[in-house]
């Protein structure tokens, strides 16, 4: 969660000058915090979701859909309105923050959920409440209706005439068509955000060009999709980094009972992170084209890539210290529990000296290495007022840790709190309805409890996880993708070589079934059911809700229900205005967004997620 702080930004030159200062102080702060929190144990299991909403505006008379770039204005309104009326807060309340892209806004429950009584099923009601809160403060202008939408990717984000900048929210639709929008206007105007998105480009020394392969339909002319000089053949190019990350995510955080259990959960989330991508896929259209990718994940990593030519291995190392194989936003760099040491088979550099220092402070080897890896990165921004820190502050540590975005984030507890060690699962796309979002969140929470309870193990060599990630984002990976997965999910560390994994499809992984090698895999949902059945105090109504959630995931994995991405593709395919050329016109966008909005906000039933069997 990013809470914007006001302050004066240092120039990129000064930020570089003070990079070592920030790193050194950050290390000191981390060591201090580590000693304070290393033995922290939290008996109560807590969890929560982070759901990103997109702000849109619909002009029904002109048949146009726009993306609104004014999330910044919504936050104080929604917080004020929620605090004014306690009925509006429910049992758990809500918390709202801006995101870097100016059209996204993130909501979380006001306090974490636990595992008692009804909180597994309370998340959906809380999501509904949050949606109500945000919709209640959205105003409409000039016949346009503003709304929030839990949709991962706006089809024409990046195209001309598809967005309304903050200063133009009061302009009539006719004035928006030929508007030239500056990159600045795509970014929520907190100083930090601008730096975080611009400075990777400055550091790298080359302009960003995010290539996304275009889906080839009957009439698609792949040679005509982009005129950008950095375009690969048949690819559309997102020209600015913010377009790469301007896609909405659904994230889940769970708290371990202590450092050891949190590391265990982190390590299990790592191999699961590619698996949940095809099941939650919801971003098949980018910048006006149907693409070869179903998930949002593919464009994140290039958008935040700050590596120089030297670090990428394109030039000999002179000014920098390391060759770095991955962007600072990407797949997990390694496992954290010592038992998984052998599985960290991909090279990733770390600062040896720092590593030694962490080990001397009593951290175990893998955790020390994980932290030493984070500190090879430069800070992406520095606020002048925060440069020199008091003994008890921790901005520099948070700066470095908060700009290492892996698909699973291991969260160090804040020192002055009773919050414990946590793992955050970050690869899922947001779904249209609260029911779906609740289903995915609860699925992950139940899965993490099942893993701990039944002592399960899904780890595999990290290089295999990376291979799975590459397949996971592809079009129709939910049906066609083959993923490495562990055949026997029960923890048995004597057998962790390659023979314990084999390729399976998503259906087998989620629902169980025969693997290509002949053996049966039990399936994640049967395992979860085994856990739920062993909990004797889930009442009938709750159990039936949990069954509905699990059924959605099961149906999508089995192909009985379309994923959001498949549903969007089919909608486009059947749209009378679609010329089967992969191009998403304003007209199609309007109809799609209108339908999404009706479904998302409950005025139309989400028929596409119903399954008769």
């Amino acid at each position, binding site marked *: 969660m990013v809470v914007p702080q006001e302050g004066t930004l240092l120039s990129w030159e000064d930020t570089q000058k003070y990079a070592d200062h920030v790193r050194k102080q950050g290390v000191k702060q981390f060591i201090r915090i580590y000693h304070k929190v290393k033995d922290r144990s939290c008996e109560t*299991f807590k969890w929560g979701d982070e759901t990103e909403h997109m702000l849109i505006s619909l002009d029904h008379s002109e048949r146009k859909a726009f993306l609104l770039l004014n999330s910044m204005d919504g936050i104080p309104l929604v917080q004020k309105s929620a605090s004014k009326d306690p009925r509006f807060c429910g049992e758990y309340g809500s918390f709202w923050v801006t995101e870097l892209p100016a059209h996204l806004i993130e909501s979380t429950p006001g306090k974490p959920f636990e595992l*008692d009584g009804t909180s597994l099923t309370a998340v959906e009601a809380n999501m509904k409440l949050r949606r109500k809160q945000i919709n209640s403060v959205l105003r409409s202008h000039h016949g346009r209706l503003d709304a929030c939408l839990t949709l991962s990717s706006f089809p024409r984000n990046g195209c001309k005439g598809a967005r309304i900048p903050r200063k133009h929210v009061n302009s009539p639709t006719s004035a928006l068509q030929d508007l030239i929008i500056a990159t600045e206007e795509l970014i929520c105007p907190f100083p930090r955000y601008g730096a975080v998105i611009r400075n990777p480009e400055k550091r790298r020394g080359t302009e960003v060009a995010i290539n996304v392969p275009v889906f080839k339909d009957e009439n698609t002319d792949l040679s005509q999709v982009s005129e950008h000089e950095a375009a690969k053949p048949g690819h559309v190019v997102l020209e600015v980094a913010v377009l790469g990350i301007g896609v909405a995510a659904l994230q889940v955080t769970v708290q371990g009972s202590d450092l050891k259990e949190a590391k265990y959960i982190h390590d299990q989330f790592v191999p699961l992170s590619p698996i949940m991508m095809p099941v939650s896929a919801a971003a098949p259209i980018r910048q006006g084209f149907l693409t070869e990718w179903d998930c949002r994940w593919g464009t994140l990593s290039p958008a935040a890539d700050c590596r120089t030519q030297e670090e990428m291995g394109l030039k000999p190392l002179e000014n920098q210290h390391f060759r770095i194989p991955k962007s600072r936003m990407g797949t997990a760099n390694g496992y954290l529990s010592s038992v998984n040491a052998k599985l960290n088979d991909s090279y990733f550099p770390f600062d040896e000296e720092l590593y030694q220092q962490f080990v001397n402070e009593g951290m175990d080897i893998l955790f020390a290495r994980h932290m030493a890896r984070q500190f090879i990165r430069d800070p992406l921004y520095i606020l002048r007022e925060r440069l020199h820190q008091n003994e008890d502050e921790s901005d520099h540590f948070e700066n470095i840790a908060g700009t290492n975005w892996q698909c699973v984030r291991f969260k160090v507890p804040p020192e002055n709190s009773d919050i414990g060690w946590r793992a955050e699962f970050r690869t899922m796309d947001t779904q249209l309805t609260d029911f779906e979002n609740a289903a995915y969140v609860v699925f992950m929470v139940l899965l993490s409890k099942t893993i701990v309870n039944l002592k399960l193990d899904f780890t595999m060599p990290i290089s295999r996880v990376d291979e799975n990630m590459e397949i996971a984002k592809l079009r129709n990976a939910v049906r066609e993708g083959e993923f490495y997965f562990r055949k026997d999910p*029960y923890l048995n560390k004597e057998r962790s070589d390659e023979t314990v994994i084999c390729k399976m499809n998503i259906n087998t992984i989620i629902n169980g079934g025969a693997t290509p090698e002949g053996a049966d895999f039990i399936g994640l949902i049967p395992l979860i059911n085994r856990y739920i*059945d*062993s*909990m004797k105090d889930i009442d*009938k109504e709750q159990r039936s809700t949990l069954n509905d959630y699990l059924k959605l995931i099961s149906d999508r994995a089995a192909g009985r229900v379309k994923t959001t991405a498949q549903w969007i593709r089919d909608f486009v395919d059947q749209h009378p205005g679609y010329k089967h050329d992969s191009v998403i016109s304003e007209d199609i966008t309007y109809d799609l967004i209108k339908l999404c909005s009706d479904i998302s906000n409950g005025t139309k039933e989400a028929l596409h997620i119903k399954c008769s069997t």
Partner: protein
Amino acid sequence: MEVPRIPQASSLIINSGNVINFECLKKRKRIAQSTTEELKDCLKTVLDSRLKTINWDEEKFKTSLEFTVPCCNPALSDEQTREDLKVTVKAMMCNADPEVIVDAIHRVLKELDTDIIDVLLLSVSEKPNVIETFHMDHLKTLWSVLERMVDKGQIKTLGVCDLEKPALEELYNWAKVKPSIDQVNEISCCIIPPDLNAFSKEKKIQLLTHGDALEILPAEDFQELMKESFSDLDAQGWHTSWVLRYTALIRCRGVITRKGYTVRAQRNLNNI
């Protein structure tokens, strides 16, 4: 000629100990195994391991046998207190003799090394005492015993299983300690009957679900097990008198630290 190995035995108790890490339960593959199969697997595992070291000459003359897996780990670890733990026991009674249920519950208390059960769920067989047909009086007889245990502080909360609205209402109106839970079968009761739903809401009776068969351990299944573990001749005449399943859950973490079965079977040697 084959001779029976336990010719004198008319009572047999098997205590599984903690089954959480039983390999046989992990091996279950695709289709969710019924609790009957789970129970049979556990009992087989216990017998297999205990019979390896048994002195058959001694067993020959015993009238009651007991096979127990000694428990290696306590239900409570050092960090937790008893309050953190929720102990639930489901007593599935085929024998409606009040003394039998007292004995059964005491065994579980001893096994878990605790003096109180948080939730006790009572389920009475369709055919109590083998020959009779279920009647509310069977249930009430056992319920009275449990009420006394509540008075003594040995049980906190009482629940029943598979009662439809008229029976639940009858028990509710009659009982001194009211049922707080009605645990209904999730297969036979996909949709909660409206009258049961309304009544339980009004009386604040929680409706929970279970996946246990009406007879969790039918006589034929137990005899089959005896046949495999002892001999054809030793298998005759046995029927279940009770099955108790217990779980210990760390409340706030949803983690089950202990789960086990205690089973008693009996036979009348004169009838064989």
